[in-house]
């Protein structure tokens, strides 16, 4: 039996009339020609091209075939083999089981109950054919509709729940497509109907599909699961591990959280009210990265009782300073102050900086790649256009740069404007000597910035006493963020977004002739926070769930921790699978599934079937081959035609 997946395309066959009509009225087209006088020119009938009639007819036929083949291919024709076992006059009864193999199905003995329910349903229901679709975050496997029961049993025996969250939408579409259009359809949904899975976008199902919901017996036993583990460096080579757990049961629980790793294990008790989150904190000595697990004692759902994570000291922050001209005192001074402020170490600091100076010739993309932060002290005016482009490329990748003004500040700020980095307008210099009696003072910090936390309340007192003798005046644009401003509202430090990165542009040099800031206590925290403002100290740690592990080179199917691509991967089961809430399968879910039919009523018989299902064959590849053949012949014939008689229609109007 022939069926079409997109029968609406068949209306396009009406287009076949166009070449036929063209053929019937085929005459040479007249060329427009302005002529001095048409007084003696009489009108005449235009000639038909009788000589090429046979060739034209062949061309017409080929073009009709080509058009028809393309249209039919788009209509997705399917040839369905008739079934010998179905007696004439009766309807084929087909049942497809949609089995949820998401991680939550491993809770207690739900999985065994689900498989038993499927077996029982197969035995109780008198279906002519049975098929099966198993899904988790995607369709894991499917069994085509078959009259034989052995493959179904073998298929069931090989199934087990995955470690991923469930996404039933695509699986429902796949299951519906297994049905024959003319059959009596029955779709059995076998799942725990966890609300986190079944509240996602679901496709509608045609009304002629009978929906049956098989739900394993609800189990309200105690379940406490780990939701997240976070690590924070505290001091040199020490890390704090924060384990967050959730009590998914209806009674408060006291649970034991254990950290296991190479160092041994450490345990802490946490009291959790019903349905609430709780934390346990561990402090560890860390000299090099190591994989660890946080564990809970066994309960009804064990997959959320283990959390894989990495503990690692934070990497050294590499700061590269561009120093093209050592004769420029402001550049050298600024570099000296920056280097001193960043490289000073104390036991309480958990970030270490490594400052390196770059010569003029080394400012290139290959060197910049290694830098976490680039500082250009009083040297931006020396950058060539291509070096600005390199800097923009560097910033685009989410990196940070700090550009400090120097004696040639106009050139620097005009370059920032010219390369589209800064939208504020350069106005000139405010103040010009360090003998100025009334220096400028900083007065405000952007409250959403990291600097605002560092210089909160009394901590800002010293910063606001900083004397600035001269600074570059800018007319701020709404597109640029002002991190710090002077009393008169002029920007003191701008944060300029470039792609995913940020360029910080103070409007004064870190030089005693411009300001006394480098000599004050505020300088060290200001510089260190500015460098860290756009720097992600946790960038090497990657937390993903099992269903997201497809981005790795090797497929990961179970929770684990591993080192790959220079990053530390923590792969765990999605905590959403621990949620014990279920959707209503009596009213809400059937209503939701029938709201948006996959296929409009009456056209359900036209859907296409996946290849390899056994009883159907897609015909569109053959039609495309026919179309290609027609196209080839048509090109050949057209070439011959043009060789035989060059078209006079190519003649151009001589006027």
């Amino acid at each position, binding site marked *: 039996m022939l069926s079409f997946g997109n029968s609406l395309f068949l209306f396009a066959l009406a287009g076949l009339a166009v070449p036929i009509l063209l053929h019937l009225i085929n005459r040479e087209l007249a060329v*427009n020609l302005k002529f001095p006088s*048409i*007084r003696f020119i009489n009108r005449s009938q235009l000639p038909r091209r009788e000589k090429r009639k046979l060739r034209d007819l062949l061309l017409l036929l080929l073009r009709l075939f080509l058009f028809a083949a393309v249209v039919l291919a788009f209509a997705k024709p399917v040839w369905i083999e008739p079934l010998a076992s179905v007696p004439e006059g009766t309807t084929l009864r087909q049942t497809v089981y949609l089995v949820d193999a998401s991680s939550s199905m491993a809770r207690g003995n739900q999985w065994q109950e689900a498989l038993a329910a499927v077996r029982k349903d197969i035995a109780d229901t008198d279906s002519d054919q049975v098929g099966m679709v198993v899904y988790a975050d995607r369709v894991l496997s499917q069994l085509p509709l078959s009259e034989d029961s052995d493959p179904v049993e073998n298929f069931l025996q090989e199934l087990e729940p995955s470690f991923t969250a469930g996404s039933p939408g695509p699986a429902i579409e796949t299951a519906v497509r297994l049905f024959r259009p003319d059959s009596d359809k029955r779709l059995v949904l076998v799942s725990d109907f966890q609300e986190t899975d079944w509240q996602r976008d679901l496709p509608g199902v045609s009304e002629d599909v009978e929906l049956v919901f098989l739900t394993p017996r609800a189990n309200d036993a105690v379940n406490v699961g780990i939701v997240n583990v976070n690590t924070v460096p505290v001091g040199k080579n020490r890390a704090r591990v924060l384990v967050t757990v959730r009590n998914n049961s209806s009674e408060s629980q006291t649970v034991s959280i254990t950290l296991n790793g190479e160092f041994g294990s450490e345990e802490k008790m946490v009291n959790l009210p019903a349905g609430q989150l709780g934390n346990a904190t561990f402090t560890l000595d860390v000299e090099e990265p190591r994989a660890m697990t946080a564990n809970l004692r066994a309960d009804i759902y064990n997959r959320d009782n283990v959390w894989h994570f990495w503990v690692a000291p934070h990497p050294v922050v590499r700061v590269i300073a561009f120093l093209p001209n050592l004769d420029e005192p402001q550049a050298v001074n600024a570099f000296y102050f920056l280097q001193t402020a960043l490289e000073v170490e104390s036991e309480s600091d958990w970030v270490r900086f490594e400052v390196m100076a770059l010569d003029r010739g080394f400012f290139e993309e290959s060197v910049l790649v290694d830098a976490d932060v680039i500082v250009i002290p009083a040297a931006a005016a020396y950058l060539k256009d291509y070096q600005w482009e390199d800097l923009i490329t560097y910033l685009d990748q989410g990196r940070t740069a700090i550009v400090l003004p120097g004696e040639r500040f106009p050139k620097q700020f005009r370059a920032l404007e010219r390369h589209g980095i800064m939208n504020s307008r350069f106005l000139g210099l405010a103040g010009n000597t360090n003998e100025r009696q009334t220096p400028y003072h900083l007065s405000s910090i952007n409250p959403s910035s990291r600097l605002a936390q560092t210089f909160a309340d009394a901590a800002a007192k010293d910063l606001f006493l900083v004397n600035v003798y001269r600074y570059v005046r800018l007319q701020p644009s709404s597109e640029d963020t002002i991190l710090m401003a002077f009393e008169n509202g002029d920007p003191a430090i701008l944060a300029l977004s470039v792609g995913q990165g940020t360029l910080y542009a103070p409007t004064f040099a870190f030089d005693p002739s411009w300001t006394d800031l480098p000599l004050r206590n505020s300088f060290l925290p200001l510089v260190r926070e500015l460098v860290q403002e756009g720097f992600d100290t946790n960038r090497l740690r990657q937390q993903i769930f099992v269903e997201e592990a497809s981005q790795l080179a090797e497929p990961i199917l179970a929770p684990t921790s591993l080192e790959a691509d220079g990053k530390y991967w923590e792969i765990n089961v999605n905590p959403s699978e621990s949620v014990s809430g279920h959707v209503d399968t009596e009213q809400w879910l059937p209503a939701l599934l029938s709201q948006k039919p996959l296929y409009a009523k009456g056209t359900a018989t036209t859907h296409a079937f996946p290849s390899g299902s056994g009883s159907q064959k897609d015909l569109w590849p053959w039609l495309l081959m026919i179309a290609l053949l027609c196209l080839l012949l048509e090109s050949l014939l057209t070439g011959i035609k043009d060789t035989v008689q060059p078209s006079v229609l190519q003649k151009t109007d001589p006027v």
Partner: protein
Amino acid sequence: MAVAYKDLLDPAHLTRIENYALMAKGAVEGFLSGMHRSVYHGLGTEFLQYRNYVPGEDLKYVDWKVFAKRDELVTKVYQEETSMNCYFVIDASASHNYQGERAACTKLRYACMIAASLAYLATRQGDNISLFAYQDSIVEALEPGHRNGQLHRFLQALIRLKPEGHANHERLLQSITHHMRSRGLVVYLSDMLEAEETLPRMLQTLRFQHCDCLAMQVLDPDEQDLPHGYPVRYIDSETGQEVTTFADTVREGYEKSMGQFMEDLKKGFRDAQVEYTLLLTTDNLGRALSQYLHKRESIT
């Protein structure tokens, strides 16, 4: 590579020369140097130049002093001093914008080339030259004169001409009649389409004012034989009317009608005692120049 004599009069060659002055000089000098014996020297008393003696020439023009000095026979050429006016009347209507595949230029360009050459020749002969170009009305008018710059003004006026609009012959006649007060020669250049009755009558009127007329019909070869071998929608340049036809089927009738039109035109001019010349845009300029010289001589 040396330019052959025939090239100097060939429209395909001349049309490449954008400068009318240069073009006219080349054509006229080429034309004159190709003649065995030139009798068209001036008849005045003002010495113009020497040229080599040609056997058969009147010996009274030989300069014997030069012969004595150089043992070489040369004749004196004098600047002619006449007050004859040469009026050039050019039809610059839109129908003159046509250029068939065989032609090297449009009809207007060809007419201008002829006018420029004749004007150069006339100036050389000492005649006054004047120009009237018209479409619906007169678009260029130049009073007769032969002083310095007259030829330049004449050629500049030709350059400014653009083929547009419909030719209004009657209005032209009314406009130029009062300008022609003295005896002269009218050189009329037009395709003369659809005017086989008007034009002979018009030029006859000028003859009544003691002006000799030289009617030069400029046509493109396409207008004679309608050579297009494919369906064409012909659009009348002046009226915009259209007719779609296949030339092969109507060519015979067209040639017949066109032949009749030409005959009527010739007869009309003959009756009006106006000398008529048909020039195709593929013809060289020699015919036009010789026609002028013959006419000029007969007037003299």
